[in-house]
């Protein structure tokens, strides 16, 4: 049924893990009192009437980090098979990975110089 051994357990555990929040929320819905009166459902803003909503356009300063993250995340994923098979590949693989990482370090240095890693 399963080509890869052990992954039927993954599927089973996914179902059990997903049942935890579902059960918790259903029990909560059955046990907890319910009242819809008053200001209860007003958005919290330190005791004041909320001024406008939060769904507005504003400058997200983190998007440059997100871009750099994608580059390095993909890099790390590429390095995983290299690391697992490294004992069979030897010196040449080491030099190849060195070149690969050097290119990305140049990219990191560029992003650093350009101020992409500055928060302000």
């Amino acid at each position, binding site marked *: 049924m399963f080509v*890869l051994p*052990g*992954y*039927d*357990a*993954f599927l*089973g*555990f996914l179902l*059990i*893990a*997903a049942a*935890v*929040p*579902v059960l*918790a*929320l259903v*029990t*909560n*819905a059955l*046990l*907890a*009192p*319910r*009242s819809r009166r008053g200001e*209860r*459902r*007003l*958005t*919290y*803003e*330190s005791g004041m009437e*909320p001024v406008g*909503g*939060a*769904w507005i356009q504003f400058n*997200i300063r*983190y998007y440059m*980090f*997100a871009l750099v*993250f994608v580059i*390095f*995340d993909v890099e*790390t994923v590429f*390095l*995983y098979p290299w*690391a*697992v098979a*490294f*004992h069979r590949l*030897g*010196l040449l693989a*080491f030099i190849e*990975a*060195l070149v690969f*990482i050097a290119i990305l*370090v140049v990219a*990191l240095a560029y992003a*650093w110089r350009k101020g992409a*890693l500055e*928060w302000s």
Partner: protein
Amino acid sequence: MPPSFTVDLEAGFRGLIEAAGLSPAASRLIWLPLPMLLVLVAAVVGVLVTVWLERKISAAAQQRIGPEYAGALGILQPMADGLKLLVKEDVIPARADGLLFTLGPVLVVVPVILSWLIVPFGQHLLISNVGIGIFLWIALSSVQPIGLLMSGYASNNKYSLLGGLRAAAQSISYEIPLALAVLAVVMMSNSLSTVDIVDQQSGAGILSWNIWRQPVGFLVFWICALAECERLPFDLPEAEEELVAGYQTEYAGMKFALFYLGSYINLVLSALLVTVLYLGGWGFPLPVEWLASLLGQNIDAPLVQVVSATLGIVMTVLKAYLLVFTAILLRWTVPRVRIDQLLDFGWKFLLPIALVNLLATAALKLAFPAVFGG
């Protein structure tokens, strides 16, 4: 040389059922949910103990007494808190997005529980020894920020939105050094499987643990794991002085409890993974073969194997709770960092260090293959 008898509960249990006349497929189906439920219960008990420890140790650090009325020494306090949250009213703000608001905490807690799939407590004492092992945890841990971002956005509250954005920025910044630190360990064990990673650290007891060969990797991993768990000094997404409670601001009752549960399960999980990756997993500080011969016992004897498997579970839990203890002490020792300091530390310090550590490991493995896993 592997011992001829090892503690393998699955083989024993299935053998027993199959002897009663069931097919192998049926016996596997009956076996499968048992370790999962056991691990789930263990995780929840682990969280209750951790919450109690956190409150007691925090109290000691501040010269208070802490919880003392619920059970002996207040040990039942976390359970009382959980029961209280279970009967609390669930409030969804009128302006929030109801569906995403509910889905957020679920997405936070499910991957964290699912990661326990690969935590080994012994040679065969884990739910499933899947081939990609530790990589599965890295993949699952990237799902969590989506849940945080989702709940921050869905609340339609400014504090929540800022908290959610901070949580996402923080966890993507610390994920890469974390993955690179794991990569160096993977390179030494030539495998992604958590069982192989622990096996590679056995032989000479405490001296063969990875912490001696990967001291930098250990520190990078533990710092990043604390940042991923949003523990102080990295708890900016829920910094109460600035953001009330960050993405949790609008949450009450069971949904809040899910966030709480998720963060503590994550802390215990991270401590267990540090144990597996760097502290020899279920291994003793002294080689078990040497201990057995000292006591005049045959290592293959069933009784010795059962005792050593039990002690292995105790060792794993002890090491993990030592790390949980340091995490709690760190909380009262180090002040919270600022968001720009946090991102600088991740990108400009930990990332280069983790890269250098990886390349150094590769170079050392080429130079001294015997010491660095062949």
